[in-house]
């Protein structure tokens, strides 16, 4: 027998209680792993994106379109090299009603401002020349089984055509890839021709949701951002210009402050867990007062006894944490696979790191008080049942 064996043996003195407690720790850490990964996605958003682009949208909301007449004005701002623009289309693939993230763009501006989208030049040219042209990201095209040359029927929940029909048909003229692994994962969108969209749709004309400003080398992003917003101050189209990363994070957070929601859920989960595990530990020590006194009688020091109780709490939290995080990793991978990579939950190393900190903090929170009680036990009083 080893000291570790003794700790484990003590943990299983009440098998049902320990099993239920461990299950609650596992459930909490599974939730922690999944939610923290989700939070990480929303917080980190697009860490791989550099600061070479700014995004300009209407100050109130990006759903408020801005006029295309701003293009030459934005191109005139010192430090802005190129300007592209994007209009949300909101399509649904008619075959299986899958939602499609589709944007109407100017093909060659898009090509110029986003060198990260990689596609053969002839496909870019085809996209520019074909009014009903459409290009799709590799991940999306593979998932849908789309091939170049195929007609893709989409319906739009927002934009009917001028004839009143919500059905649109596009010609898939290209499939784009990402220039890096990170960008490759993002190839889940569709781009259609803005010119065609602008003429054919019933509502929007000469407007777009946001602009992407590619900055010249060495340009001061903060100064340009201020200059752009200053230019449209007190106009009917006031703007908000921010880095692409902030824009992406803001875009994802439209549905609410996910970070805050996740933090509150985790707080509730761990607070409950502290009560459950803390109660288990306190009860376990209370039941064993004479045994702990015997340990001291045999010559185990106060510090050893403190260590035994803390080790029990640590073993509970560590085992539950490891299994919980393992399950979260597996579930995360299953979710990613199940959604064809559209919703990637990657229980990454930083999340495992946070879990490790949580295990240590929880061990101390639930184990320290019972351990100190055990450490301070007076042998004579404990043996006499006082």
């Amino acid at each position, binding site marked *: 027998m080893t000291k570790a064996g*003794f700790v484990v043996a003590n943990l299983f003195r009440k098998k049902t209680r320990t099993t239920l407690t461990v299950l609650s720790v596992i459930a909490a850490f599974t939730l922690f792993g999944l939610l923290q990964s989700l939070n990480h996605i929303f917080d980190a958003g697009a860490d791989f994106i550099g600061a070479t682009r700014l995004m300009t949208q209407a100050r109130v909301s990006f759903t408020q379109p801005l006029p295309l007449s701003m293009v030459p004005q934005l191109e005139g701002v010192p430090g802005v090299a190129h300007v592209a623009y994007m209009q949300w289309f909101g399509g649904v693939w008619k075959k299986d009603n899958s939602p499609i993230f589709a944007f109407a763009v100017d093909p060659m501006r898009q090509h110029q401002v986003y060198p990260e989208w990689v596609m053969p030049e002839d496909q870019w040219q085809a996209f520019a020349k074909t009014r009903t042209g459409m290009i799709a990201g590799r991940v999306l095209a593979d998932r849908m089984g789309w091939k170049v040359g195929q007609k893709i029927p989409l319906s739009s929940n927002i934009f009917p055509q001028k004839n009143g029909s919500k059905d649109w048909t596009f010609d898939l003229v290209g499939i784009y890839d990402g220039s890096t692994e990170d960008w490759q994962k993002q190839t889940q969108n569709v781009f259609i021709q803005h010119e065609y969209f602008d003429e054919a749709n019933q509502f929007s004309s000469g407007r777009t949701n946001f602009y992407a400003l590619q900055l010249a080398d060495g340009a001061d992003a903060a100064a340009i951002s201020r200059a752009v917003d200053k230019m449209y101050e007190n106009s009917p189209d006031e703007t908000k210009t921010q880095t692409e990363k902030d824009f992406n994070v803001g875009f994802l957070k439209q549905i609410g402050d996910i970070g805050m929601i996740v933090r509150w859920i985790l707080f509730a989960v761990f607070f409950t867990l502290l009560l459950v595990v803390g109660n288990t530990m306190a009860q376990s020590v209370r039941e064993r007062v004479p045994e702990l006194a015997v340990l*001291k*009688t045999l010559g185990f020091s106060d510090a050893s006894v403190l260590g035994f109780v803390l080790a029990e709490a640590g073993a509970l939290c560590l085992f539950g944490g490891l299994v919980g995080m393992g399950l979260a990793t597996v579930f995360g991978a299953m979710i990613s696979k199940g959604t064809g990579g559209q919703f990637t939950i990657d229980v990454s190393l930083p999340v495992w790191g946070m879990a490790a900190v949580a295990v240590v903090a929880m061990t101390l929170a639930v184990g320290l008080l019972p351990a100190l009680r055990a450490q301070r036990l007076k042998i004579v009083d404990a043996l006499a049942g006082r």
Partner: protein
Amino acid sequence: MTTDAMIQIRNVTKAYERGRQKVAVLHEPGLTLDVPRGDFVALMGPSGSGKTTLLNLIGGLDSPTSGEVSVGGQRIDRMSGGALAKWRSQNVGFVFQFYNLMPVLSAERNVELPLLLTNLSSAERKKRVAIALEVVGLADRARHKPGELSGGQQQRVAIARAIVSDPSLLVCDEPTGDLDRHTADEILGLLQTLNRDHGKTIVMVTHDQLAANYARHTLHLDKGELAEQPVAA
């Protein structure tokens, strides 16, 4: 005063605080006592006379309010908590009335417990555990948990645990108080063997005169004062 005394107690007093009250169990001018090496002493007396208090002081489980306690030539009343714990692990074996075994551990693991404080290898520990269980006649019950053993068998395991690290002193607090006569006689016979054949010095608290008859000497405590009554060994 004996020079070959295993235990030397000089003018020892002990008072406890119970709430706001101070209760003197061993009172002034203090108790003085020598127990020779290799002796088997029974401590008798009415409840509250200070028997267990004296036993706790001898076993290093408690410290005197005043006076000196030396065991095996070492002044244990001056030791810190940590030093006293280490001293106990090397020099004293304890046997309690209610056995105080770890219910989650098998007999052999209970016996092995004190050896976790040593640097012995796993193989050496196993060897010593086997010998200790052999001495108390429980080699065939090594893998049984306390709940699967009778009271007498549990007390034998407790004795094996007390002797496994080969201490020179055994302190026993009512070791037969929870046993029937026949089993008690077996346990007392075992203690007697450990005293006679293995040279262990034994101090045993008991209420039972028949149990005390197994000791070489009986000491009577009353209101914290000592009176010796020698008995035939």
